[in-house]
């Protein structure tokens, strides 16, 4: 039986929109449901996997780095890659290469690859469904 494959097209950079957390919830849920997932990160979303992100303390909250436990989207990317690996699910996370170059975020977490709209078109043609999460 052919596997169900979902493709998500993300556009938002980290820390700018509620759509980012929702996108990760969808990816997480899809993996747990046993669906293969493709992510095409476009425009600002190429920074989601930027390996140089770092959590920080929060003096307003009165918490140190450990206490604040501030998420980074790069850590979330690692989490869903690991979740997929553990469950033998295919998660293919592709950053649009030109978007990476413009933004200088070419240090992505391991498991994320550089690609182009050709990858997106390949995803679309081999997926059960494609969801674009647009930005505003």
């Amino acid at each position, binding site marked *: 039986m052919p596997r169900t494959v979902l493709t998500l097209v993300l556009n938002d950079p*980290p*820390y*700018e*929109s*509620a759509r*980012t*957390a929702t996108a*990760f*919830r969808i990816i*997480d849920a899809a993996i747990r449901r046993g669906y293969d997932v493709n992510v095409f990160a476009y425009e600002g979303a190429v920074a989601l996997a930027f390996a140089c992100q770092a959590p920080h303390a*929060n*003096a*307003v*909250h009165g*918490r140190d780095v450990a*206490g*604040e*436990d*501030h*998420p980074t*989207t790069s*850590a*979330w990317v*690692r*989490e*869903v890659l*690991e*979740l997929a690996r553990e469950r033998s699910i295919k998660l293919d996370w592709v950053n649009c290469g030109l978007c990476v170059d413009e933004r200088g975020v070419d240090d992505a977490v391991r498991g994320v690859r550089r690609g182009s709209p050709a990858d997106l078109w390949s995803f679309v043609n081999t997926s059960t469904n494609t969801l674009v999460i647009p930005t505003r």
Partner: protein
Amino acid sequence: MLQILTVAYRATLEEQDDPILWLSHSLRNNGAHIDLLFRSSAVSYVVRGQSPIGLRIGEWVQSQPPDIAYEVAALMSKDCRIFALAEDLAVRGIRREHVLGGVGFIARAELPALLRGYTNIWQW
């Protein structure tokens, strides 16, 4: 200074706070006199019972979810006045009994008088 917030829940899960509430706290802690006006979807920030508990991505489970109502109340405890636009609350069906104590309901017609009381007005 009057901070006017119009957008609610923008990246609050990732930041574990609202960036403008956080900034307001930080400025207040540095001595600024700040009041806040919530308009549009941001009127939701004065509602009791906001509880984004349980965000999970892979093995990561959020241990410090944002507590927006707490942060609003904490600003009030620092002598910041908090206002919410009455009409925007009403159209969304948010009644006074659902709202934190101490929040001032401001009608649209009262906005000019409110704004005249500030030299710095920042709309976010």
